[in-house]
């Protein structure tokens, strides 16, 4: 049996695209080396914040927010509103400069007084010097990504294979993908392998300049209610939120150790400590919360930090989607656009040519 398209990578990018393709009449198959949604899409901090999105990606994020709202409780979505905090004069300047630009890009961000902040989040330290607020911000539960998309793929009748790594891609009347469970045939391929895009594209003799950051997230035990919004930091070094079940999720892009090629990331305690310290500094009551788990995930990027979203250089029936900064937020929306491109429709918003020169800061 041959599929219209084989999607390699069952993260949010691959799954969101698969759904659009099936809705458009194609017959896709999704292949993942692990389980669906156990890569970056299943371990990320789940922050859906416009305040931390890149200016040029704001339209995609705004559309993404709308989609997350529709996905709702099935993905643990909560629109809480979010505050970004500044503690030093330097951070105050940074906050004003950056959030003003993001506001101009369409995010409904305002600057709030300390009194308003304290009324909204009484548990925060009084050391806050300035804060911005965005009512659109919130979070989803990334752990539910796999469960959610598994159900959606089933409902749409889309074939998927878990624990099925693609180890070779041959051109034979379309493509033949090699896997330990036997070959899979498809007319097209979409590479959506996240931080593993580089070795995957290499199977097609394409060199994608993909790097990976290894971000750390920690979670505490259930705590009494301590905060009700998503909290961020002007430098991006802290994101935190308290889930409905009382657990507090703490992130901020602190780096662990390891590379995607080695297969597993490792938490670096030297990075976890200041991450937790900063969280406790912002919210002193967090001090007694016991950390139950810390983990890492690989977030892919290319040198200009814009997405890879388009045809694979040198091919017209092979596509690539990944390296989206804030990709959890933007995944559902950019997946639809990517699906439209593959379906031969013109996407509602421009995509990001994977064949571009990556040196300039302009797609």
């Amino acid at each position, binding site marked *: 049996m041959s599929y219209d398209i084989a999607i390699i990578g069952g993260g949010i990018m691959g799954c969101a695209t698969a759904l659009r393709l099936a809705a458009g009449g194609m017959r896709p198959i999704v292949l993942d080396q692990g389980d669906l949604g156990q890569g970056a899409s299943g371990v990320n901090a789940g922050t859906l914040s416009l305040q931390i999105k890149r200016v040029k990606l704001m339209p995609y994020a705004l559309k993404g927010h709308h989609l997350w709202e529709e996905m709702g409780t099935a993905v643990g979505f909560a629109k809480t509103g979010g505050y970004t905090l500044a503690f030093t004069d330097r951070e105050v300047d940074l906050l004003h400069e950056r959030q003003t630009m993001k506001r101009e890009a369409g995010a409904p961000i305002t600057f709030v007084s300390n009194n308003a902040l304290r009324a909204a989040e009484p548990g925060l330290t009084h050391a806050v010097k300035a804060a911005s607020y965005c009512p659109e911000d919130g979070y989803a539960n990334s752990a539910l990504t796999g469960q959610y998309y598994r159900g959606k793929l089933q409902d749409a009748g889309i074939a998927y294979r878990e624990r099925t790594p693609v180890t070779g891609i041959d051109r034979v009347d379309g493509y033949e993908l090699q896997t330990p469970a036997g070959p899979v045939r498809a007319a097209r391929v979409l590479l959506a392998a996240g931080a593993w895009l580089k070795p995957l594209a290499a199977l097609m003799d394409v060199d994608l300049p993909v790097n990976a950051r290894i971000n750390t997230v920690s979670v505490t*035990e*259930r705590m009494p209610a301590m905060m009700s919004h998503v909290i961020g930091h002007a430098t991006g070094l802290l994101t935190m939120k308290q889930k409905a*079940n009382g657990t507090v999720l703490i992130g901020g892009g602190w780096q662990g150790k390891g590379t995607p090629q080695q297969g597993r990331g490792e938490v670096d305690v030297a990075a976890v400590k200041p991450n937790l310290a900063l969280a406790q500094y912002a919210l002193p009551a967090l001090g*007694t919360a*016991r950390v139950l788990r810390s983990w890492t995930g690989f977030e892919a990027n290319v040198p200009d930090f814009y997405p890879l979203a388009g045809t694979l250089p040198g091919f017209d029936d092979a596509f690539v989607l990944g390296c989206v900064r804030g990709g959890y937020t933007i995944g559902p929306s950019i997946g639809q656009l990517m699906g439209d491109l593959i379906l031969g429709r013109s996407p509602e918003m421009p995509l990001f040519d994977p064949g571009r020169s990556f040196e300039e800061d302009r797609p």
Partner: protein
Amino acid sequence: MIRLVPNHADRIRRTAEVTFHFDGTTLPGCEGETLIAALMRAGVLHLRNAPHDGAPRGGFCAMGLCQECMVRVDGQVVEACRVTVTPGLQVARL
């Protein structure tokens, strides 16, 4: 009745009895013993309520792993099977 395994209860000597507080009630215990043991001797097995169904739970593994014996001491969640009884210790249900 014939016993091959002797009863040693009377031959165990413990430190002097002190009192501690569990959720407002004053209970006896021996200084230096593990909190969960003092609570058991005092007949208190129900240490907390489970999330979701609110069902009563008590110590289970007795070795600091299962977290079923979580209680609050000095504002900090600790395992009752790893806390030592001291005079006047204040212990709260979660």
